[in-house]
């Protein structure tokens, strides 16, 4: 290999490390950071500036990796709650600040011209050593990627990316995962940046700039968001393309942009996903080995009591002075016309929303389903259940309880609507909740499926769970529930034996007075 080819090979390794760092942030944690170029730049500046102040090479390299880690983790700590474009633009602002500092703090950074590197240790002064350094950084980045995925769990991360609200309800700590992802990503990026600076022997604001971010975007979006191997291959291609297209000069970067657009349109998961899809049938044929079944009662007795709950949205009072007490082994039905405040009440009870006034006393773990099935479409049924942190045994037992073991390996998006409802219930059951909350789980179910749902809920209550079900289908509930509560316009208007509640004149007026109510959904 010629010296120049070795030089390009080292540059590709550095880019691969930076790109894999961004895969951790965007591919695994789902956070669109636009500061991946900055992470590389920080590493590059650290490796060149610190030895000038007398730091040994090894220590400077450690700082090039750990410095960006700390800065990115601390920064993300401040902005961890921001979603989508807020997060993206906050990171872009951070990256712009870095460019401004690098360009203007001339005494330290050398300004727009940058700095030349002092000679490194003699044993590293060869093209081969630089290649080893850069690809070592890429491999370290890949190790960080798989370590991160292993630590936080592939299923949990998928749920966090695709259904953030459900992830929150299941106690997945989105903020912590983001802080960790940005820190890990910056570690990989810092190493890549150090390798880049070491290879070219100088650093300038160029490496911090959006140009680096654009190259990383090209590598990850085209190659695939969750494949370090694809990032390595694409980094090689991206590094060599300008050489092949040298006759195009500057314009080869335009080609990146066009290719990016085409991939976002046609292969949104990147080229590696196309390869994976071609090989997927083989993987599924291996099948799933069910672990021995285990009884699925609640982990501990649960109870729920709320007094004087109020929730206002601006001038609208969605929940007005609601009190309720639910006990273990009982099924309670919550009914009421549309807009009565039922879902708001569930959100308050589960902690997704804060009451304006009132107290909630909850004992035992809580499990809930959502009005719209909030499942990760690409994960299999078993993976969806396991995404909540349930053990394989409990996940399997939960699938068994709802009758879905035969579909354990089927992606959630391939399940029929009714089966998706049951999968949601299995997911709630797998956490062995003391309190089980169901939001319109019978909507869209056939008569047979409703019978099956009633059996599942009776079994859960029989095992000691406290069950609260929100539904429109009053006849179904009358046969199922031990206790019924009717809400209208935020107030509880009737409570007690289901047959008594359904004959209560106030309840009948509330329903008939609300002609928009869907009644029993078809």
């Amino acid at each position: 290999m010629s010296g120049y080819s070795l030089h390009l090979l080292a540059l590709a390794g550095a880019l691969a490390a930076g790109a894999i760092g961004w895969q951790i942030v965007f591919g695994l944690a789902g956070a669109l950071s636009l500061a991946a170029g900055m992470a590389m730049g920080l590493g590059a500046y650290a490796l060149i500036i610190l030895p000038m102040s007398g730091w040994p090479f090894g220590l400077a390299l450690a700082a090039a990796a750990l410095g960006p880690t700390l800065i990115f983790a601390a920064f993300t700590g401040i902005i961890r709650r921001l979603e989508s474009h807020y997060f993206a633009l906050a990171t872009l602002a951070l990256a712009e600040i870095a460019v401004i500092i690098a360009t203007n703090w001339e005494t330290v950074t050398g300004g727009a011209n940058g700095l030349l590197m002092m000679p490194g240790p003699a044993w590293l002064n060869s093209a081969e050593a630089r290649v080893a350094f850069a690809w070592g950084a890429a491999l370290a980045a890949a190790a960080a990627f798989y370590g991160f995925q292993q630590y936080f769990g592939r299923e949990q991360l998928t749920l966090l990316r695709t259904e953030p609200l459900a992830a929150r309800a299941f106690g997945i700590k989105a903020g912590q995962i983001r802080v960790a992802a940005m820190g890990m990503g910056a570690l990989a990026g810092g190493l890549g940046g150090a390798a880049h600076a070491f290879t070219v022997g100088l650093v300038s604001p160029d490496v911090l700039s959006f140009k680096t971010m654009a190259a990383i975007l090209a590598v990850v979006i085209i190659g695939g968001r969750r494949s370090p191997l694809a990032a390595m291959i694409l980094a090689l291609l991206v590094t060599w393309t300008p050489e092949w297209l040298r006759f195009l000069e500057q314009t080869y970067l335009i080609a990146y942009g066009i290719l990016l657009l085409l991939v976002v349109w046609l292969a949104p998961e990147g080229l590696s996903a196309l390869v994976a899809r071609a090989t997927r049938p083989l993987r599924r044929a291996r099948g799933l080995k069910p672990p021995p079944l285990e009884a699925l009662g609640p982990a501990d007795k649960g109870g729920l009591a709320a007094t004087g709950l109020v929730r206002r949205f601006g001038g609208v009072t969605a929940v007005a002075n609601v009190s309720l007490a639910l006990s273990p082994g009982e099924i309670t039905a919550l009914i009421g016309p549309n807009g009565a405040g039922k879902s708001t009440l569930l959100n308050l009870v589960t902690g997704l929303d804060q009451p304006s006034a009132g107290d909630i006393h909850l004992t035992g773990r809580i499990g809930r389903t959502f009005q719209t099935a909030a499942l990760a479409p690409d994960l299999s049924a078993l993976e969806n259940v396991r995404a909540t942190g349930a053990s394989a045994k409990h996940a399997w037992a939960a699938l068994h309880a709802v009758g879905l073991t035969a579909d354990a390996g089927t992606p959630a998006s391939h399940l029929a609507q009714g089966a998706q409802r049951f999968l949601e219930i299995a997911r709630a059951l797998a956490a062995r909740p003391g309190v089980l909350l169901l939001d319109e789980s019978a909507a869209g179910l056939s008569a047979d499926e409703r019978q099956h749902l009633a059996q599942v809920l009776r079994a859960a209550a029989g095992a000691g769970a406290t069950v609260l079900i929100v539904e429109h289908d009053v006849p179904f509930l009358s046969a199922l529930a031990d206790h019924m509560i009717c809400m209208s316009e935020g107030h509880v208007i009737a409570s007690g034996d289901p047959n008594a509640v359904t004959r209560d004149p106030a309840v009948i007026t509330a329903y008939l007075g609300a002609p928009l109510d869907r009644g029993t959904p078809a």
Partner: protein
Amino acid sequence: MDALSLQLLFNGLALGAGYGLLALGFALALRSAGAINFAHGDVAVAAAYVAVAGGGLGLGGPATAGLAIAAGAILGLSVAGLSWAPLRKRPIEATFIAAIAIGIVLQNGLTAAFGGAPKAPTQIVSGGAQVGTVFMSWQALVSLTAASIAFIAVWALLAKSHLGRRMRAAAEDPEIAAAFGIPVLRLAILAFAVAGALAGVAGVLLAAQHYATPTAGADYILKAYVAATAAGWGRILPTAAAAVAIALFETIGAAIVSHAVAEALLYAGFVVLLAFRPQGIGGEAKGKRA
């Protein structure tokens, strides 16, 4: 107030007119299509370069500005057609990345065609008037007038007109709006085109006063975004006030310390604002924070 302060105030207002126009287009696309256009800054820069090219062909100031507005509208349409319309049912990051991809094409296309050095289009009007101690260039006065008209027009469109109400309904709940017979997609694409035209005006005005480089888009979009966020999403008139405040901060900061320090402080302040008051200074958040 001394002479220097008054002059700074005027310069800041003129710069604020440019930022305000950028932020206005940004807010319009958000309010009437529910879209965040990550290529908005690059569209403004590209329109400014179209004006530069027009000047190179011997066109005068007003003609080149007209050319830039047309280019902005066409680019706005292209962004809608390439990055937003085909991807709007996908996870929202897909539209962001597609728009960023368009930005990469524009940045590098401009660098290839014009080089990386700063360029300025011909001024729409040259000269100016001395009012007391303050020199008011005609160009700056044109900027202020254009921005004022654009703000009042967009505000009236959204708040007062039937078309504006339909646009807002389409952005807030596209499915319900479509069920009521509102042509959601067409309205959104129209909003992108108008936003692009506004970016074109902003680009040509900003570049004439302060030069542009092919990569200035990131700074432009950040300033538009800072103004829109500080004002509270999609609130039109507070956005103008925020844009002027940003420009004054930048102008006065540049005079007292340096432009770099002022800009860095502005971005740092923006991050702090986002972290502690994402709904903006002015009011409730309109954007989704899933």
